[in-house]
């Protein structure tokens, strides 16, 4: 016979494994675990409670992610989980896993530089081109195709690319 504690911890493991597979709808090569968006899973009286955090205040992917988590858990037979969004502590690109960074680069998006935080107002940073690896690159726009990306261009291979901006 399993105790309530072990079955809860087992349920949590199953729920985590399922939720960790959910992909970011805007960057499908990354899971919400890679991104650090999946913050916590708790089991309280048999009820699964999932905590996620938005990357940006207005990130339109959050509703979709919450729905995908519910579907992923439902496939494991876990019904009606509570999915809560928390703001604090504020998400930072420093939470992105090494695996996530590698996957981003392979996908053609330059991964965020480590040590996020505030830059000087007109400070420059060096971002390597994800296609050819050259560091002779320039920013075209701080605001890219999604909130989390900026648009850059490589001056060596001439290709434009997305940079997952430091946040």
């Amino acid at each position, binding site marked *: 016979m399993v105790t309530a504690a072990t079955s809860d911890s087992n349920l949590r493991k199953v729920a985590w494994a399922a939720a960790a597979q959910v992909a970011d709808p805007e960057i499908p090569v990354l899971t919400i675990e890679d991104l650090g968006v999946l913050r916590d899973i708790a089991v309280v009286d048999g009820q699964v409670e999932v905590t996620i955090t*938005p990357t940006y205040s207005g990130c339109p992917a959050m509703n979709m992610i919450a729905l995908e988590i519910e579907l992923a858990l439902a496939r494991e037979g876990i019904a009606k989980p509570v999915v809560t969004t*928390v703001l*604090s502590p504020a998400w930072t690109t420093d939470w992105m896993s090494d695996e996530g960074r590698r996957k981003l680069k392979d996908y053609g998006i330059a991964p965020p530089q480590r040590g996020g935080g505030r830059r000087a107002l007109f400070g420059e940073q060096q971002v390597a081109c994800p296609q050819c690896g050259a560091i002779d690159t320039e920013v075209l*726009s701080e605001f890219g195709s999604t*909130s989390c990306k900026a*648009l850059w261009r490589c001056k060596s291979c001439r290709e434009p690319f997305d940079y997952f901006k430091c946040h």
Partner: protein
Amino acid sequence: MAVASISVNESPLVLYALRRADDALILGHRLSEWCGHAPMMEEDMALANMGLDLIGQARELYSYAGKVEGAGNDEDRLAYLRDVRQYRNLLLVEQPNGDFARTIIRQFLYSAFADLYWREMMTSPDATLAAIAAKSEKESAYHLRHSSEWVIRLGDGTAESHRRAQEALDDLWAFTGELFHADDSDRSLIADGVVIDPERLRSAWSATINNVVQTATLTLPARDWMQKGGRTGHHSEHLGHLLSELQSLQRSFPGATW
């Protein structure tokens, strides 16, 4: 058939959250009006992106105001079912987009304040306000950098871009006094240490403005008369027109969802 406006019990904390939420929603809506109209693709995306950040901040603040009020008003009801006189935003953010220079100057004047403001509010003992501040300050840093760079480019650009940027600065300057507004309601929160006194930020704000304006070869207006009214619901004619568009769907089809 339009639905009636709701009433809100404005305790100091509710009023505080509504003022900040209204700033973010109205400015976010103004930026979204550029979508598909900006002078270049990158700016179309930039302005829409910043609008999205601001609307996200507004949602958090409205949700909190509704929760504190405890009368069943959620973010949607607060955004869509209050009438123009119930809006508490700065007059600055409701000013029409005008040309690109005017939009950029407006964004710069607001962002230079918001960036300082949210950074200071991160230490609020109110956990929700501190969390909203911590998300918002990262975003306002981008907004300030983006608008500052454009102010410099426009001011120190062609004779035409300089003229337009200077004209926008001259016109919008009178709306900046409200950034430092605090009334008895706010002062009770300031006294309790829940929110910061915006007056504290004035010199740092002025330093940022002076630095960028000077680099841009623009000149700050000499007159210091300041317009006020937004924080108490006395708005320019522009807000009513903006709300008629923003609220039309919820007013016509109450409770509509996507």
